[in-house]
């Protein structure tokens, strides 16, 4: 935290705070993103430092806004969790063909081990698939330095750069030395470049070739970029590693030789070849998919990888030791902790009690309310990805026999609705099931799950200032939804139950907005003077 800054600029920061700090120090003009653990604190800290930071309705829009800022010659950063990049994949792939004028940094915070995610996808694949350079810090100092490096690379080659963090980089604190970073070379100014920025096929064909030329140039540069560090040691074991895995490995094998890769795409092939030639046993230690090991082997370099069992979950020092010892025996299973649950007076409780009592088939979504899947409710039957509740609910309605179809309800949170639920409502009006449908928006006035962030429905900006407000009931009426109800589910349980039963029986399209503020959010909103930096639950002694 910067308020603890000492005069020599030695700071104890999380990886997320370090990225924000570097962005601020490098004069990044706009930070945009959508909340998602473990990425959320990057923009919050950027804002806290005085940077211009905004929550977009979703990651696709966030990236598009950042792209525009970079077209205008500004330095821009778009932040998201790993699955957010799926939402933003369309602009992500296309912008690779386009010359950006300013710097464009995309931060993907991956969650190996799924501490709080629905999958553990490894977003290094995206770098290669789109042709976007990839930087991977291992601690907060590297997060700081590589953010600055990403800006340099982006501006030098007019290419977006993917900064890939993982949970244990984002949420680990370590010491950084803050530096004075190079400032933007010029002020934003619009320069027309129709051929370079309008991706019609005739321009995009050239754009693709230009991208490959740039990647070749960056690959050559990366051989001597100073980003891939040879740490000499005992040549009987040579470890090639990147990100947090390298930290675990240095502790697990303190005497080994290391090649630490900070820029894994485009891969520094010759640097790796010469390292492998100097050691007796060359072993790749990486978290997640066997991505690095396959890339190195594809370059014709023989290296050893890990057993398949280590694809799953996070690595740690003990697991790395096992990989080094080629130990693929079953691992001890850590005892399960206590599962999270709804806060005692959470308004979601009333809704899930009712859904359970009415024996509804619930197409669910993601947020605190996903806890409705756990006992004592067990009243949430599916969750795929953000916004999927409406589409999956409609799909169920289309095929199920009428007596089951009539029990299907789509349940979605207010932030999730803004993120990707609106197009679901459009689908419902356009392709209504024969039995009608019921959508329930759980409007607790915040993005609770990720730590109480604002969203377009709260009418407040990232730093809690008043702004335009999207009203879901008005939106639904304009879309032509026949029945729209707004109700407080906790005020009168029987009335709520009756409303839901009647809606299910109506065979019409119904939107029910269950509106009751999250208690934690209400508390924070009341004391506006709060430290905006601590976005999560209020500080305890």
């Amino acid at each position, binding site marked *: 935290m910067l308020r603890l800054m000492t005069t020599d600029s030695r700071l104890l920061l999380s990886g997320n705070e370090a990225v924000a700090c570097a962005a601020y120090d490098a004069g990044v003009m706009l930070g945009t993103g959508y909340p998602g653990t473990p990425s959320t604190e990057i923009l919050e800290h950027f804002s806290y430092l005085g940077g211009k930071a905004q929550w977009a309705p979703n990651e696709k829009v966030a990236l598009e806004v950042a792209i525009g800022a970079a077209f205008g010659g500004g330095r821009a950063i778009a932040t998201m969790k790993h699955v957010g990049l799926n939402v933003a994949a369309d602009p992500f792939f296309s912008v690779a063909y386009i010359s950006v004028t300013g710097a464009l940094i995309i931060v993907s915070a991956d969650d190996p081990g799924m*501490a*709080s995610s629905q999958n553990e996808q490894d977003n290094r694949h995206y770098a290669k698939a789109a042709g976007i350079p990839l930087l991977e810090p291992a601690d907060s100092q590297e997060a700081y330095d590589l953010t600055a490096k990403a800006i340099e690379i982006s501006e030098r080659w007019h290419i977006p750069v993917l900064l890939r963090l993982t949970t*244990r980089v984002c949420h680990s604190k*370590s010491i950084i030395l803050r530096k004075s970073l190079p400032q933007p070379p010029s002020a934003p100014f619009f320069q027309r470049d129709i051929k370079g920025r309008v991706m019609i096929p005739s321009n995009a064909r050239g754009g693709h070739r230009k991208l490959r030329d740039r990647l070749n140039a960056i690959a050559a540069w990366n051989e001597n970029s100073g980003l891939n560090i040879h740490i000499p040691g005992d040549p009987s074991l040579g470890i090639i590693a990147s990100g947090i895995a390298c930290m675990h490995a240095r502790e697990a094998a303190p005497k080994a030789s290391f090649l630490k890769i900070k820029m894994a795409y485009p891969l520094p092939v010759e640097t790796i070849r010469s390292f492998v030639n100097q050691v007796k046993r060359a072993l790749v230690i990486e978290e997640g998919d066997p991505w690095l090991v396959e890339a190195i082997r594809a370059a014709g370099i023989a290296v050893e990888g890990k057993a398949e069992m280590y694809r799953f979950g996070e690595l740690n*020092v003990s697991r790395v030791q096992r990989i080094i010892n080629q130990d693929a025996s079953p691992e001890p299973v850590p*005892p399960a902790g206590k599962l999270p649950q709804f806060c005692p007076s959470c308004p979601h409780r009333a809704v899930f009690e009712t859904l359970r009592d009415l024996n509804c088939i619930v197409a669910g979504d993601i947020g605190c309310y996903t806890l409705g899947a756990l006992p004592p409710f067990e009243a949430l039957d599916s969750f795929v990805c953000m916004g999927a509740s409406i589409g999956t609910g409609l799909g169920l309605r289309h095929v199920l026999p009428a007596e089951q179809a009539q029990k299907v309800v789509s349940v979605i949170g207010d932030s999730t609705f803004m993120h990707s639920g609106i197009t679901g409502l459009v689908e419902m009006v356009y392709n209504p099931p024969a039995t009608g449908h019921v959508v329930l928006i759980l409007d607790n006035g915040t993005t609770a799950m990720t730590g109480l962030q604002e969203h377009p429905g709260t009418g407040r900006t990232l730093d809690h200032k008043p702004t335009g407000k999207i009203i879901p009931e008005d939106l639904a009426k304009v879309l032509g939804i026949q029945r729209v109800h707004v109700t407080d589910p906790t005020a009168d349980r029987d009335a709520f139950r009756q409303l839901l039963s009647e809606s299910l029986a109506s065979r019409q399209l119904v939107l029910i907005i269950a509106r009751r503020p999250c208690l934690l959010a209400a508390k924070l909103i009341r004391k506006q003077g709060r430290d905006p930096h601590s976005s*999560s*639950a209020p500080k*305890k*002694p």
Partner: protein
Amino acid sequence: MKTTSVVIAGLGGQGVLTSADILAEAAFITGLDVKTSELHGMSQRGGSVTSDVRFGHQVFSPMVPWGQADCLVVLESTQVDINRPVLRKGGILITPDLIDKKDLLHHRSMNIALLGALSRHLPDIAEPAWIQAMRAHLTAAIQDVNIQIFLLVRKSQA
């Protein structure tokens, strides 16, 4: 100097993360290399939370390997068993049982009381660093009472 590893465990809302921040800050003020690791997200809703803090000359992994914690601080008795395996042989377990109720001047300060007990086992961190760290991480209204509790516990346990 060997790396010291501490794990702080409890349930969401008990102040695990604040305790870890204070310990890390105290080591940082002392001039040591420090790394912490914690999990946010789902765990905030009353679920199990742990936070690792490691300090020394040079710390690599931010996570304390199983069986290698020098100290384990547990804020909630139900969480002792699931966390015990992280402790090394001869490592120190610190639980609410150790706290004399009369030292607990504020009902929400068990985490700080336990830090007071922990501090006795961490000779590398001097008292002023602890106090400075608490001032940095606790809101003004609760600083003094918590520092008082910390010092009471730190001194009361022989």
